[in-house]
């Protein structure tokens, strides 16, 4: 779905749709369950009806695979509860992005996921939840980021900042090239709190990534540890971008 104007056939060197140079860039106001800015195929599923409201607070019932785009505080986001799944990557080829040195940014409105241990907001890995994988979930008290190389893992858990339902939360993480991880969190635009950087672990073997890697919002693998939230932004960038770059780069 695209609500921005079209300019005809795209020709290099000026792509005529909004493009991003991030590895993955999904922005809810594009109203797409794909990631059109980076050209990734998306798949949204729920398998049941779900309720949401329009901007006048009129309640609606979404059919099974209808995304619940909901405006809150004048901003558009995708409402997902524990059974909702949003996957980026084609069914045959996957995402084409692996859990190698990169930074990520996720903007949500807290909807209670934080207090459910292991509820997962973001996952990068295969559907079997095996091999190399990176995921952002919760300890039941604080959000945390984990990198698993297929054999062992490192986890960075926040020790301050417990967002409450309705809080806007900006979560930023870094997977360093020594496979250590670090997580930052900003609540309602306040200054970030950060975890310590973990120690590094061995690099995963090429086969540890599995055949098909997906980026997922709101679950770990295809069916586990469903989260909940009002999702607005997901960005993955390679390397070590600073906060401003990660926030503004398209």
């Amino acid at each position, binding site marked *: *779905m695209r*609500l*921005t104007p079209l300019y005809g056939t795209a020709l290099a060197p*000026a*792509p005529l749709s909004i493009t991003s140079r991030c590895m993955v860039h999904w922005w809810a106001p594009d109203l797409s369950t794909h990631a059109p800015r980076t050209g990734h195929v998306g798949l949204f599923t729920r398998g049941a009806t779900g309720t949401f409201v329009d901007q006048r607070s009129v309640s609606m019932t979404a059919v*099974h*695979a209808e995304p619940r785009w909901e405006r809150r505080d004048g901003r558009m986001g995708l409402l997902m509860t524990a059974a909702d799944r949003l996957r980026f990557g084609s069914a045959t080829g996957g995402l084409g992005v692996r859990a190698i040195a990169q930074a990520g940014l996720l903007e949500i409105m807290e909807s209670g996921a934080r207090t459910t241990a292991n509820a997962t907001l973001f996952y990068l890995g295969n559907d079997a939840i095996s091999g190399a994988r990176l995921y952002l979930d919760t300890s039941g008290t604080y959000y945390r980021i984990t990198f698993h190389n297929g054999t062992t893992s490192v986890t960075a858990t926040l020790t301050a900042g417990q967002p409450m339902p309705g809080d806007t939360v900006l979560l930023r993480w870094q997977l360093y090239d020594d496979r250590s991880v670090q997580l930052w969190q900003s609540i309602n635009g306040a200054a970030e709190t950060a975890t310590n950087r973990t120690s590094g672990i061995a690099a995963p073997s090429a086969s540890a990534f599995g055949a098909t890697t997906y980026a997922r919002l709101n679950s770990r693998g295809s069916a586990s540890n469903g989260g909940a939230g009002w999702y607005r932004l997901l960005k993955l960038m390679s390397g070590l971008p600073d906060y*401003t770059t990660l926030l503004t780069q398209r």
Partner: protein
Amino acid sequence: MRSLAINGWPIETLGLRLVNISPWLAGAQLTRAVVAMPGYSGGVPSPFATVTSRILTLESIVQPTSMAHRLQLLDQYADALDGLLEIESVDAPDRVLYGTYQANGVEVSVPRFVEVQAALRTEILCADGAKYDREPSAIALSTTPTPIPLGTAASVGLFRFRGAAAGVRRVLYRGINGNVLGAIGVNMTIGSSECVDVDGVQRGISLCDASGVFTNAYPFKLPSDRWFALHRTDGHPAADAWPTLELDGGTGVFYYRRAWSN
């Protein structure tokens, strides 16, 4: 952002200082046709107008610390001008304008190898001169007419019909006097887990099945119905009375962005 941002980059972070922008608050230029008729005094005005594109001119100054720095800033600016540009400004942060880079003139003072400051004049072609809401709106649709707030330019959007439905399903657009000014409909049979999107922006129709997969469903379109746009003159904005949308059955939702001529 202190002045203007291009694709999310405040222009100041690109090392530039914006000194002028034109036209900014002016509306897009309309070209109206007048047809001469034999034996008729004067011309006959066409009810339609052509809206020209808008060329946005940004004048800025780059104040580098060295010639190498100047080159670096100019390279960075050229990089930022690639592709479709989404332009936001501090005076209307909720609205965006879309354009593509057209020309960039760089002037340096003489002697050019001593003075590192340079003046830039960048032209951005906005094929669609309207500004759009940065955030889309979502309005629930039912068989009850629902008012649709609009900007100062015509808006199109996406209608989503939810299943189950069998046969013709239409959305009706009415002015505040109740007259039907537009209608678009589909003839479809869909289950209770499916929905159909009628996209007035791309003029396409697609079916979303229970597995979340979208497929082309243009053949659902009723040949007799025409695409339409919503305009505030069909309402009475000063009285907060807006034109309405309604379905002839079932439920749905209308996603759109308000469009602004200024």
